[in-house]
């Protein structure tokens, strides 16, 4: 039986985006928010309706699309992608609300954000490789325009770099797709049919060499996805976008697109290439720990909130990769959980840094001599300070916040397989506490100066959109059980295939 809730999560934002072309401001804003919220409500209903302790794909929607190439419209959710649905559902209405007062081309911006929301929902739920690739490829377009039109002075260069990195990545993924498609007879793109190590042992001939399909496809896909997620040192485009993109767009990138790319990577690893994962997990953890540590060290050197956010994102990606490579139920559940928590944490960080940048004129909190240029905001705007403090606490993994759950599970899960990396990750967490507290002191504490003198506290609208992020961080930190019960069966099933 087909459920249509997943399709509704795609249809509502797309209708909203189409309406942006015909409806005038201010009605268009309400339409954008309403359509994004409608999709989010569908996603939440979808997750609530899912059965716990069920490893199967649920809420399936399966229709033929291009019959001659066995491409189908196959959408479903399970433990691996359910949390991403929640993340996207929370994130996009918040982003649309945060751009409410956008002066230039608000309809275009909100329309593109809606397209991005639909494409990310699609990429998260698609169970057909071609369909997934389609949605994933589409998600690069709105980002290009959002950065290129609404970005800062160097927006064109940044947008171009984003597009080039994305296109290169997509080309690599597409090559892998073709390889996979032709390796099985009958040819298929269906993840369901390819699941469980069906590609294991398949080989193809290239210039006289016999190569393993799963290993080559795994490498191509990993390389392709690492160009979209910030992996050190391939993240050059990412830090540039962090400087040039509008706050909401960069938040969409690091809190929406990056977690989805990590999800795609984990699904490909566990579902498509369990054999390749078995031999590459140490590399994944190695890349993860490199990201975590270098991200942390680079974050220490930052003087601006945007770039700091970029490097925190880099670190968080490293932590998730550690969990993916742990091949341990606790670690993998942690990595899936952390995808949600990093998204929410980074979204919160990005939003409050956007608010600070809007009010003070820039996101720099230190000048070139590393002297403070902000300060004392806590006395001017206590609500901003409290909310920022809560978000920082979650990013550091303090108990009671979502970050704690993810961090604890990943560390526990990774230790039994990679003890040394866990010790190194401890060093990275210590660094995080240093740079986050330093940042907090320089912005919020101390005497008020010229730039922060007129700083006003959150408006009602700002409180309204920050609230879901902070509440989610607290709620999922204090009561993670339902979500973990949702993830666990799927993780156990996919891990059994690896073992």
């Amino acid at each position: 039986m087909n459920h249509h809730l997943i399709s509704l999560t795609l249809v509502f934002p797309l209708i909203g985006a189409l309406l942006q072309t015909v409806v005038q401001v201010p009605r268009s804003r309400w339409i954008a928010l309403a359509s994004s919220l409608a999709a989010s409500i569908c996603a939440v209903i979808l997750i609530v309706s899912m059965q716990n302790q069920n490893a199967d794909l649920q809420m399936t929607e399966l229709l033929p699309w291009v019959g001659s190439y066995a491409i189908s419209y196959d959408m479903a959710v399970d433990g691996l992608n359910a949390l991403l649905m929640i993340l996207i559902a929370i994130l996009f209405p918040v982003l649309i609300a945060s751009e409410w007062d956008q002066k230039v081309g608000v309809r275009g911006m909100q329309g593109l954000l809606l397209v991005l929301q639909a494409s990310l929902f699609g990429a998260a739920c698609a169970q057909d490789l071609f369909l997934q690739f389609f949605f994933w490829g589409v998600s690069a377009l709105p980002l290009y325009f959002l950065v290129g039109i609404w970005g800062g002075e160097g927006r064109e260069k940044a947008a171009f770099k984003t597009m080039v990195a994305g296109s290169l990545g997509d080309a690599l993924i597409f090559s892998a797709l073709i390889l996979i498609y032709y390796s099985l007879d009958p040819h298929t793109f269906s993840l369901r049919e390819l699941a469980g190590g069906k590609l294991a042992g398949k080989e193809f001939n290239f210039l006289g060499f016999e190569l393993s399909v799963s290993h080559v496809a795994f490498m191509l896909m990993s390389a392709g996805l690492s160009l979209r997620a910030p992996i050190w040192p391939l993240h050059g485009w990412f830090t540039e976008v962090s400087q040039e993109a509008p706050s909401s767009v960069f938040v969409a990138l690091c809190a929406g697109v990056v977690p989805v790319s990590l999800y795609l990577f984990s699904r490909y690893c566990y579902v498509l290439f369990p054999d390749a994962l078995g031999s590459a997990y140490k590399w994944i953890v190695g890349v993860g720990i490199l990201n975590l540590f270098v991200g942390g060290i680079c974050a220490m050197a930052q003087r601006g909130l945007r770039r700091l956010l970029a490097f925190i994102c880099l670190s968080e990606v490293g932590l998730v990769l550690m969990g993916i490579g742990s091949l341990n139920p606790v670690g993998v559940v942690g990595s899936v959980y952390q995808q949600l928590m990093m998204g929410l944490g980074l979204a919160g960080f990005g939003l409050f840094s956007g608010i600070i940048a809007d009010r003070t004129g820039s996101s720099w909190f230190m000048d070139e001599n590393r002297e403070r240029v902000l300060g004392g905001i806590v006395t001017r705007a206590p609500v901003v300070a409290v909310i920022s403090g809560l978000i920082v606490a979650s990013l550091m993994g303090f108990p009671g916040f979502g970050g704690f759950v993810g961090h604890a599970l990943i560390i526990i899960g990774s230790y039994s397989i990679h003890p040394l990396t866990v010790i190194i990750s401890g060093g990275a967490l210590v660094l995080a506490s240093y740079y986050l507290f330093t940042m907090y002191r320089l912005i919020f504490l101390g005497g008020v100066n010229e730039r922060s003198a007129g700083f006003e506290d959150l408006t009602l609208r700002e409180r309204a959109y920050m609230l879901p992020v902070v509440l989610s961080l607290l709620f999922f930190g204090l009561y993670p059980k339902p979500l973990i019960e949702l993830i666990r069966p799927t993780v156990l099933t996919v891990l059994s295939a690896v073992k």
Partner: protein
Amino acid sequence: MINQQGSPTFLLISIAVLFLMSLFVAALGKRLPGRGSWLIWAGIMILLVGVGLDSGIFLKDHFETRIWSAGWIWARDEKGAITLGMFQDPIALAMVTLVSLVSGTVLLSQGAFSKEVYFEKVLTGLGISTAGVALAWTSLTPWMEFLGLSLTILGGFLTIGSRWDSGMNAKLSAKFATERSVGFLLAFLGACILAASRPALILNDPELWMGHSDLVHSTWVGAILLIVGTCVQLQPFPFLGLLVAQTEGYLPLRILLGQVLPAWACFPLLIRLEPQFRSLELFPSFGWVALTSSILTVFAGLFQRDWDLMVGLWLSAGLSLSVAALAFSGPYSAMALLIGVSLSAISMAGSATALDSEGAEIVSQQKKALWIKAAVFLAASAGTGLVGFVTTTGYVRWITQALAVPATAAIFLFSFALFVFLGWRLAWKVSFRRSGSKASLAVIMSSFLLVALSLAPIWTGTVTGELIQDSPDRLIKSLFDQFFTTQSFEAYRSESYFSASSLYWGVLVFSVILAYWVSGRKQDRWTQITSFFPKASQFIARGYGVDYSTGRLMDSLEWLGRCAEKLVDVKIWSQWMPNLLSFAVKNVSDVTRAIDLKLTESLDVSVKKLVDVPAKLLQLIQTGDLRWYLFFALSSGFALLAHFLKL
């Protein structure tokens, strides 16, 4: 094993109520002037009532431990379990009562700090920290303990940084938060490693731990990180950063919320997991580290010129001593030192702050000053183990046990002597202040109340603090015996009672006299001594340069970060990659051009060769005369004719 006999419901609810009331004060404190302190008072009273109700049930149930346990993140019966749980046993109930009383007593002296600009922040910090410590002592799992510790750190951060508009205060509060977070993260990492390698970590179940002897290395690593992370909260050497920094704000609050309560919040981990750590043979080594740290901290205190900094360092040294006592002597001595030294430091700080050394009216206030000075001396006595205070039993037990190994005994006695010396130096320095006081009766009373809480009869049931053999001075049953049922003192005390008590008296009296000789007279001899080597004394007073070195390390990491960033952004993406790409493109195009040229040339030659013969022929034709045309025409005609004739 966990046996759920019932939940410590009242305790749980009362902690939650105190926490919520603190949040309420934070949110609405300014709008309810003067009522914030009443709300925190009410919260603390509710906590006391909760303890009372649960204690009543506890007594009724014949000391049956009550447990509330719930799955939180990962199921209890699986590897890597992360669960929540609370339990009440005598020590938990006693410590929750103590922290409530201490916070209540400090609140009693609010007249001294109610004029703080951000008074509601101080109140919030006090409430949250008290709830945190209560939660920590009743935790069944390290995860719950971490929750309590985090709340305590938050409370300290709010209070230390209550004057957030001051640059120095901001720096101090951020430093406090960073240092404590680092400690917390290390302990958290240790707990995670233990959870990864062992069954569920339950704080009241050492048998569960002992039953699994596999993965010894992991257990070692985890336990070491857990102890180190916990010890960071006590701020001994080398974590003296905040203690040697200049500070602002009300000193007793800084001592209570910045040092005492974080130490109390992390100490349950050490006390509860003591059998486990001992089974790993970690404790003697950590005991030595703590003892050395205590000695170095005392020296840092001795070289301070600022009394406020000195008292903080003295407290930190005392807390280190209690960790060493735990390692060498056991939880009985450790708890005795922890309680005695902490209460003494808060009381001493409160008293010293209540003295006013400036103003015209101080002469008329000298009677109050006398009382305050008496409180300072009582506090010094309480902290340094004078007869009748809880610390006495801690020191005497430790000396008695240490006598078995003379080297340990000698070093302990040395550190004890230094500690007593610093404590009494603090008291003598206060006594020689020409001062009066405008402090209220409540402020003065609170200092005495705090000292009273550290009296030996409350904890040991004896007047002298178990100094006399066979305890003929026993008034009531010992509370400590309820806490630690396996520690029978009489069994080993009888053998070395005389030596131990002689040494105790000898060192104590010698140190007190020495402190008087050095600091209790008009000229401070210690200051004179230190003036002979100013650089070295400044180096020690600044915490042995650890803070400076840490700063340099952080600077180098920042530099490394900038280099890594430059490498990627400037070098790789803006220089190397474009250069590489342009180099590649240029070379490919050069090669292509060269091939194209070659091809064109060879094509030219081939074409030339190919067209040469027909061209010559055509040239001949072009340049030839008519007979050749005729010849070709005729030959062609003949050829055609011959062809058709054949057909």
